[in-house]
């Protein structure tokens, strides 16, 4: 944390967070003014303010945090401090864990910019939901943990920090490539994309805490730190360290595979954006038999994307006995659209089948309830009204673009000079 690189990261975080916050407040004001009194989920601070504001930390985690971590690890090797510290009885894993804790402590420190954004939103009269913000921040913290683990491992393995930096960025670009291919091809690629850092963060940004995602992130963090510790064992041969690393990756992959099967999720969003209405979920749980859904839509078809991200995701959370299969001959569906049967969604429950083409939440539920012969009780509560707020981001620019960088620069100079006082 005392390193110049951390202070630079801290200084840049403020303007990045400020840029996201200012633009999201302005957009939110436009939507609130246009929607009038009942704008519902459209005026949800989670989606309209916190997700975009804290997404700045994703940029920091990709482009700044790895270099702080690499500097911390590689600096010891390059300066020769590692040769001294490796002679201490403290186990390499404990040493690596201490560095990771220090880095995450530094990460929490730069979250002050997010805290400033929250304070400003309250000052403007905005609504603040602590569970929502805590979930968004937790997702960014886990993402930072994964980044730190990858960077520390790369720095421990590589002889030179620039090699470690390239390797770490390569891992990030690789994850983006998986996301891109998954968006086109779906299937196995989609399953792989579900465990990339960006997919993980997206879930938390929507107020969804999933056991599988959290366990996967923790497994990745532990695997990265273990590999870093393995390569700090200078007295072991390269072959021995490579074998240990391979074994660690294999165990990590098995743990991740198991983690992806874990069920258990919590929707902390005020507007229940990740869930069906309460009474609908109660009715779904009354379905006695397993539900099979066969979707005849190509992976790139926007209807399939909407169906997967909304209705099917909520359905899989609400009831454990859902099996979804996809039938498509191509990625885009352009040349299939004239085929009879393309666009159909078949539902099968207790030997009965029905077909629908609708992909909306309401349409999917209606089809399932009709098939299952159940009816949800009328919902006595009103739909989520939203929290419209047509406010200007007064003072935010001055704080994030001027006061924050200035304060960080002064504090950094003071801290760095204080070493030699």
């Amino acid at each position, binding site marked *: 944390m005392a390193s110049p690189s951390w202070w630079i990261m801290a200084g840049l975080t403020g303007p990045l967070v400020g840029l996201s916050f200012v633009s999201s407040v302005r957009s939110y004001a436009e939507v609130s003014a246009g929607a009038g009194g009942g704008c519902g989920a459209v005026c949800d601070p989670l989606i309209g303010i916190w997700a975009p504001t804290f997404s700045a930390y994703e940029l920091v985690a990709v482009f700044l945090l790895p270099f702080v971590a690499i500097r911390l690890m590689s600096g010891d090797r390059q300066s020769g401090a590692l040769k001294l510290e490796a*002679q201490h009885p403290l186990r390499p894993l404990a040493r690596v864990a201490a560095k990771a804790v220090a880095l995450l402590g530094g990460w929490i420190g730069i979250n002050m910019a997010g805290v400033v954004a929250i304070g400003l939103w309250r000052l403007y009269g905005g609504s603040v939901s602590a569970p929502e913000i805590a979930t968004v921040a937790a997702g960014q913290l886990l993402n930072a943990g994964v980044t730190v683990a990858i960077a520390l491992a790369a720095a421990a393995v590589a002889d030179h920090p620039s090699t470690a930096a390239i390797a770490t960025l390569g891992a990030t670009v690789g994850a983006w490539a998986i996301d891109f291919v998954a968006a086109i091809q779906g299937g196995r690629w989609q399953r792989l994309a579900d465990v990339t850092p960006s997919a993980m963060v997206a879930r938390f940004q929507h107020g969804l805490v999933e056991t599988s995602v959290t366990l996967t992130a923790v497994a990745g963090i532990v695997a990265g730190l273990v590999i870093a510790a393995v390569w700090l064992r200078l007295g072991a041969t390269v072959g021995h360290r490579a074998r240990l690393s391979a074994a660690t990756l294999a165990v990590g992959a098995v743990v991740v595979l198991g983690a992806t099967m874990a069920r258990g999720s919590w929707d902390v969003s005020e507007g229940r954006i990740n869930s069906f209405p309460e009474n609908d979920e109660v009715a779904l749980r009354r379905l006695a038999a397993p539900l099979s859904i066969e979707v005849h839509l190509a992976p790139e078809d926007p209807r399939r994307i909407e169906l997967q991200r909304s209705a099917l995701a909520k359905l899989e959370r609400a009831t454990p006995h859902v099996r979804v299969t996809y039938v498509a001959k191509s990625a885009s569906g352009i040349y299939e659209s004239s085929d009879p049967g393309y666009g159909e969604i078949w539902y099968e429950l207790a030997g009965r089948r029905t077909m629908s083409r609708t992909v909306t939440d309401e349409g999917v539920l209606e089809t399932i309830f009709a098939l299952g012969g159940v009816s949800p009780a009328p919902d006595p509560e009103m739909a989520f009204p939203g929290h419209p707020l047509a406010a200007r981001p007064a003072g935010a620019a001055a704080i994030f673009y001027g006061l924050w960088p200035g304060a960080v620069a002064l504090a950094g100079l003071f801290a760095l000079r204080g070493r030699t006082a």
Partner: protein
Amino acid sequence: MPATTASSNPLLEVQHLTKSYRAVTALSDVSFAVGRGEVVGLIGPNGAGKTTLFECLAGLLPRDSGVVTAEARPIAPGSSQLFYVPDGIAPWPAETVRWALDYAIGFFGGSAADRTGVVRGLGLEAVLDRTIGTLSKGQRKRAVLAVGLLMPHPLLVIDEPFDGLDLRQTREVAAVLRAQTSSHRTMLLSIHQIPDAARVCDRFILLSAGRVCGAGTLAELTAQAASRAALAGEQIDPGRATLEEVFLALT
């Protein structure tokens, strides 16, 4: 070369240590022992394998074969018996010398009582509050030596303790190192400047091209050199031979 021990109960014993880097043999069947309270000089030219040997002893490099024991127990990284002070490092460059010494005492369990004496003996008073990265080569060497001298380990292995020091500083550091033996510290020093070695060491191990070519006191090495010279039809005057002449004769 058989191990030469100064006593029947050596503090450090190295047996048949071998280390290769791919096709290059850096150390070949190296064996020697270091007795308690001795200052032993490992002498050899650049590339002889001195640093490789020291890093193998400290467990910072894996050895291909051989046994290294301290007080009859195998040495592993983190051992409480041996501490290795590398050459040419500038650890914690953004921290001050004062911080480094505090770290040595706090993290490694170094001796706070010896701090003042070590600082004064190595002439570090003027640079205590300077960051290590801003020090000259000689100042850095003395700062790192200070870290090593504060360590609680009974055996210090120091790589090139006089590198970067001028003549006066070399003599001062040599005096500090010799004074360490009065507190039962044992030292193994690698030195490639032979006159410096002769100034401070009790016994010598001659290393050349990864092999031990001789081991013993100056008198013992001179006798070895004289008998080898006689076999070759040459002469070495045992009463006037310098360590340099002995080294050249044996290597």
